[in-house]
C-alpha cells in the first residue's frame, strides 16, 4: 500500500518533469525563431540603411517613440495584421497544442490511476467483508475451528481477525455451556432417582416386615422404622427440590444490601434446636456489622447448611465458632468446629453433589450429600467462594467469602 503510493507519486513527478523539459525545449525553439526574425529584420535594415543598427539597438533596449504603432501600420499592408494571435503562428500553435495534450494526458493518467486504486480498495474491502461475513456465518452455524482460523488469516488486519476469533470462541463457549447444562440436567435426574431409590426400598421392606409381623412389639418397631425412613425421604425430597430449582434456574437470587448479622441470625436460628440438643454452643466473636450484596434467604440457607454439618459432626458439648472479618472487597465468614475434620483428599470433594465422606463417623450420620453442594452453588452464583481448611484443634474451618 505504502509502496504503491510512493511508486505512483514518483511516476507522476517523472512524467511532469519530462513534460516540463519538452515544453521548455519547445518554448526555447519558439524563442530562437523569434530572435532569428529580429536578426533578419535588423540585417535587412542595416543592409538598406547602414548605421541604423544603433537605432535598432536602442529599440531592442526598450525605447518605443511610437515605433510599435508605425511598424504595425507599415506591415499591415503586407497582410501582417494586428489581429494576429500567438495561436495563428505555427511555432506557438505547436507549443500550445503540445501543452494541452500533455496536461490532458497527465490528468487523464492521474484520474485513471485514482479510479483503479479506488476500485482495488473497494474490491479488497468487499473481499474482507465477505470473509468476515462468512466467518460470522460459520460461527453461527458452529463451523470447524480450523477453517475459521484459516479464514481469519486471510483478513489483512490481524486485530480484527483476533477479535473475530474471540467472538466466535465466546459464542462456541456459550453453546457448549448450554449443552453441558442439558447434560447436567440429565445426570441430575439420574442422580435424584438413585437417591430416592434407597430410602424407598428400605421403606418398602420395613412395611413388608410390618405386615408379616407376629407380635405387637415387632409391629411397633417396624412402624417406627417406617416412620424414620419417611422422615429421611421427606428431608431428601426437600433438598432435592432445592437443588433442582437451583439447577433449572427457578431460584433466582435477588442480591440486595443485606446485613451480615441478619444473615447469620437467620442461619443460626434454623439450626439452634439441633445444637441445643447436643449441648453445642454457637459462639460468635464480636464484629462490626457490614452490609453485603447478597440474597438474604438463600445466603442464610447456604451458611445454615455449613453450621448444620458442624453441629452434626461435632461431639456434644463443644463450641462452634463464627468469625466475621471485613476485607477490601469481600467479607470473610469463618465457621470453625471441633468435629472429626475432613481428610485432605476429601476436602474438595465434600462440595460435590451427593458426595459423602468415607469415614465411619460420617456414615453413622444421616445425610444426603446435598447440603454443601447447595451451599457452594448458592455462594458461587453470587460471586463468592466457599472452601474448607483444617482447624488447629482437629476440626474444620469453613471459609465463606461474600462480595461487599
Amino acid at each position, binding site marked *: 500500500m505504502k509502496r504503491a503510493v510512493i511508486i505512483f507519486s514518483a511516476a507522476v513527478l517523472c512524467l511532469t518533469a519530462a513534460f516540463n523539459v519538452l515544453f521548455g525545449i519547445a518554448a526555447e525553439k519558439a524563442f530562437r525563431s523569434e530572435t532569428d526574425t529580429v536578426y533578419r529584420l535588423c540585417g535587412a535594415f542595416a543592409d538598406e540603411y547602414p548605421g541604423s543598427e544603433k537605432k535598432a539597438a536602442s529599440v531592442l533596449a526598450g525605447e518605443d517613440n511610437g515605433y510599435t504603432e508605425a511598424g504595425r501600420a507599415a506591415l499591415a499592408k503586407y497582410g501582417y495584421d494586428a489581429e494576429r494571435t500567438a495561436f495563428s503562428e505555427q511555432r506557438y500553435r505547436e507549443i500550445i497544442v503540445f501543452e494541452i495534450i500533455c496536461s490532458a494526458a497527465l490528468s487523464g493518467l492521474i484520474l485513471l490511476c485514482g479510479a483503479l486504486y479506488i476500485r482495488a480498495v473497494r474490491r479488497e474491502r468487499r473481499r474482507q467483508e465477505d470473509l468476515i461475513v462468512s466467518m460470522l456465518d460459520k460461527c453461527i452455524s458452529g463451523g470447524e*475451528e*480450523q477453517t475459521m*482460523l484459516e479464514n481469519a488469516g486471510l483478513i489483512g488486519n490481524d*486485530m480484527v481477525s*483476533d477479535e473475530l*476469533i*474471540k467472538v466466535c*470462541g*465466546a459464542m*462456541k*463457549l456459550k453453546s*457448549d*455451556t448450554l449443552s*453441558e447444562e442439558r447434560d447436567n440436567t440429565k445426570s441430575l435426574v439420574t442422580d435424584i432417582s438413585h437417591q430416592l431409590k434407597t430410602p424407598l426400598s428400605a421403606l418398602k421392606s420395613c412395611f413388608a416386615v410390618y405386615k408379616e409381623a407376629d407380635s405387637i412389639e415387632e409391629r411397633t418397631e417396624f412402624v417406627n422404622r417406617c416412620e424414620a425412613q419417611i422422615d429421611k425421604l421427606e428431608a431428601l425430597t426437600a433438598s432435592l427440590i432445592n437443588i433442582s430449582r437451583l439447577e433449572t434456574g427457578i431460584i433466582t437470587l435477588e442480591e440486595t444490601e443485606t446485613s451480615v448479622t441478619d444473615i447469620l441470625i437467620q442461619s443460626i436460628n434454623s439450626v439452634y434446636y439441633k445444637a441445643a440438643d447436643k449441648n453445642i454452643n454457637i459462639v460468635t466473636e464480636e464484629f462490626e456489622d457490614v452490609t453485603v450484596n447478597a440474597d438474604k434467604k438463600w445466603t442464610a440457607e447456604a451458611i445454615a447448611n455449613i453450621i448444620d454439618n458442624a453441629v452434626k459432626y461435632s461431639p456434644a458439648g463443644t463450641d462452634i465458632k463464627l468469625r466475621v*472479618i471485613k*476485607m*477490601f*472487597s*469481600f467479607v*470473610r465468614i469463618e465457621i470453625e468446629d471441633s468435629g472429626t475434620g475432613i481428610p*485432605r483428599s476429601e*476436602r*474438595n470433594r465434600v462440595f460435590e453433589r451427593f458426595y459423602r465422606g468415607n469415614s465411619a463417623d460420617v456414615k453413622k450420620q444421616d445425610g444426603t450429600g446435598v447440603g454443601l453442594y447447595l451451599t457452594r452453588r448458592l455462594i458461587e452464583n453470587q*460471586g*463468592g*467462594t466457599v*472452601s*474448607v*481448611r483444617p482447624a488447629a484443634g482437629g476440626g474444620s474451618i469453613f*471459609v465463606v*467469602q461474600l*462480595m*461487599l
Partner: protein
Amino acid sequence: MKAILEAKKLCKYYGSGENTVRAVDNLDLTVYHGEFVAIVGKSGSGKSTLLHLLGGLDDPTSGDVIIDGKNIAGLSDEQLAKIRRRKIGFVFQSYNLVPSLNVWENIVLPLGLDGRKPDEKYVKDIIRTLGLESKVKSMPNTLSGGQQQRTAIARAAAAKPSIILADEPTGNLDTKTGDEVMAMLRLSAKKYGQTLVVITHNEDIAQTADRTVVIEDGRIAG
C-alpha cells in the same frame, strides 16, 4: 468443549548427560475455554517452568504449546510477544508492577505497548470489580501487598486476554488476603469470560478451582 491452551509431549530439560534435570517431562495438558484450572505441586516439581512454557516465556526442549489453536513453536520473538500481549495476561507472585507509574498507568501499560487505546469503560469496570477505585492515582509503593496484586490482576485483565496465567499469585500474601485475591481472580475471570490457570503449592488455595491438576517431577500425577 473448546481447548484454548494445549501442551503436547512438552519437555524442558536443563543440563546434559548425568546431570540432566527434567523440569517438565513429556507432559500433556489441555485447558478448556472458560475453565479455572489450578496446577498444584511442591516447589521444584516443575510447575513454574510449565507456566513459563505455556505462556511462551521460555522455549521447550521439545514438544508443542498451542495457544488458541496456534502452535507457538517456531514463531519469531516479535510474533510471540504479540500473542503474549493479546492472548495472555500474566500475574506473578512478586506483582511486577512498574514502580515509577501509578496504578492506572500500570494497568493500561500493556495496551500502550500494543499500540491500542484502552477501552476506558471496561478498564474502569475492572478497577471497580477489584475495588481499586480510590487507588488509581496511587504509586505502587504506597499500596499493600493485596492491593498490588489486585493491580496486577487488573493489568492482566485489561488487555482482554483469553487466558490469565498466574504464578503463585498469593505466595507473598497472608492467608486471608490470599483467599480474597483468589476470589477476585476467579470473579474477574468468570465475569470477563477468561480462562484462568493458577499455579500454586497451596492445596487449600486450589479448592476454589474448577479442576485441579497435580504435578510431580515434571509430570501430571494421578
